[in-house]
């Protein structure tokens, strides 16, 4: 497919996913009903479900999906590691621990406050994992970096679970957040994370050309005029913004950032800049799709989107591993 057509098709799919996310669920609405509720709502319980639950849920799904998809593509290009993913490399676990600390230690319940802790947690974790999984002469970098992320992520997730367990009341308002969920988010959360997601997206797209060159190897990239240190630092800033904000919004979600770039690359080829743009669009489709699936498979309750994404993503990870070799 030509790039223009691919982007067009992806945009159409984003629209479909958005409409489906607004209409489907425990109560099913027709698109017309949704439209009426949005433009001429009279405050019926109907309208309230759409306006106060479905709309923020869908917007957060779009933002988080875009952030995770793009950060996955960015990390895979940056580390030349096809298994890089903000979940697998522990970054989301770090952001989640930041939020859990904010809630339990300082009683911060406003999303606008929590997001800063998420960003700090994501930044620190990125640094720690990068140091532990640093490239070695002896090779084997893919496995070492991946396992470093898994190890650090396990530790941070364990601490977060402990905090949640010790302070059950503090988490009352965010019951399913720790499993990765879009179910209960309000407009305050949307507004708190949106600026960071947008900033991260802009920064990542600006870096696109340099990331493309980096994928060819450090020497070639330097010869092409890429400033290695500056590019890496800025890319880490972008990753931190995207993952921190996404986790503050929806909890730690693994594998979305892994899956999206691989699916996209299978469709359009390995050009990192294009993969990044398309991942930005494919991420929301995948995340909203997982969220929709979660609304139905465990009825009468909902399965958190993070659980669905982990299941779908693990299968894809197996496929990716099988195909490399």
């Amino acid at each position: 497919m030509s790039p223009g057509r691919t982007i067009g098709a992806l945009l159409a799919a984003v629209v479909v996913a958005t409409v489906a996310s607004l209409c489907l669920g425990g109560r099913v609405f027709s698109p017309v009903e949704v439209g009426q509720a949005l433009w001429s709502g009279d405050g019926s319980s109907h309208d309230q479900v759409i306006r106060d639950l479905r709309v923020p849920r869908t917007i957060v799904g779009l933002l988080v999906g875009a952030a995770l998809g793009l950060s996955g593509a960015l990390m895979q290009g940056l580390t030349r590691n096809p298994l890089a993913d903000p979940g697998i490399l522990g970054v989301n676990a770090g952001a989640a621990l930041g939020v859990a600390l904010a809630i339990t230690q300082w009683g911060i319940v406003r999303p606008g406050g929590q997001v800063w802790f998420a960003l700090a947690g994501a930044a620190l974790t990125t640094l720690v994992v990068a140091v532990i999984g640093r490239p070695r002469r002896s090779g084997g970098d893919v496995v070492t970096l991946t396992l470093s992320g898994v190890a650090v992520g396990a530790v941070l997730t364990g601490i977060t679970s402990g905090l949640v367990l010790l302070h059950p009341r503090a988490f009352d308002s965010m019951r399913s957040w720790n499993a990765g969920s879009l179910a209960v988010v309000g407009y305050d959360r949307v507004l708190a994370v949106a600026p960071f997601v947008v900033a991260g997206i802009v920064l990542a797209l600006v870096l696109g050309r340099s990331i493309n060159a980096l994928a060819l190897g450090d020497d070639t990239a330097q010869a092409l005029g890429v400033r290695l240190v500056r590019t890496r630092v800025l890319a880490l800033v972008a990753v931190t913004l995207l993952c921190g904000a996404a986790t503050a919004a929806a909890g730690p979600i693994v594998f979305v950032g892994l899956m999206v770039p691989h699916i996209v690359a299978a469709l359009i080829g390995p050009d990192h800049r294009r993969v990044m743009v398309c991942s930005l669009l494919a991420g929301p489709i995948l995340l909203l799709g997982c969220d929709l699936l979660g609304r139905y498979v465990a009825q009468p309750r909902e399965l958190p989107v993070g659980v669905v994404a982990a299941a779908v993503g693990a299968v894809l990870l197996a496929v990716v591993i099988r195909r490399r070799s």
Partner: protein
Amino acid sequence: MSRVVAVRLLGGRISGRVRVRGVLGVLVLLGVALAVGVASLPSPDAGVSLGETVDVLAGRGTRITELVVLEWRLPRVLTALLFGAMMGLSGAIFQVVTRNALGSPDVIGFSSGAYTGVLVALLVLDLSGPAVPVAATLSGLLTAGVVLGLAGHEGLRGARFIILGIAAGALLSSVNTWLVLRATAEEGLQASQWGVGTLNGITWADLRLTAGCALVLLPAVMAVARPLALHELGDDVATALGLRLRSRRLLAVGAGVALTAVTAAVAGPIAFVALAAPQLARRVVGGSPPALVASAAMGAVLLAASDLVAQRVFAPTALPVGMVTVVLGGCYLAWLLYRRG
């Protein structure tokens, strides 16, 4: 460092070579395990001190202290020691077979897989008793079979095996969450806690069941796994020595999975003991392939100590021991990776 002594018993009918450091190390570890076990017996929450515990053990306890120590504390402490030993042994077998410190059943998803079997047995099929560990073992073996099959020709020795195992673990833990959500009234918060192994609420009945399984498994495991240490000499040498490698390895993996599965059936998937015990045991007793007995003893020490920490550190709230092992074990794994040249 590695002094070897020849031992002859019964006029030479039983003879063998014994590494002095190995034997001393195992004795020390057993002593530490015993000490941790005794230290775990008192219950500050129930107002039973160490002195009263000693009284109970000497047969001079009151009815209440006997109830607390013998009925509440003792089964839990014994379970921690036994499970720790089983996990340590299982980890050692896997690490010998995969020749990789990271190839242990908790890292590569077999514990989660066994736990899926437990949940299916309990929540979907309504089974109980000895059927649960059997279901756990079958499910663990199935997981191992699928991961091995996917790993293809590289088999047990490749990095692919480990990454695929991690993927299987992630998939199965979300399946576990789904099973729990489907079948119980627990909401997201509790559901996200599921699958963290815990020894809270262990009874004598649990312990009897597991001890029965262990009695069957342990001798079989030792018989299968001991000669595997020869693999460290390399496949060629081992084949020349007449070992049928492939079948024996698969048998050993099966035994290792069964050991993990039995613990998961009762306590859930407790992470990282199987990973850390053999590596730490090696540092005590030396030797390049992880020694089986020493790994088991180290596992007992680790799990009993972790459970003690889990109960005391935020008392009166008892954390699931899996939370403590995941934090300690994850740090240890990170350190192992950090030091890799």
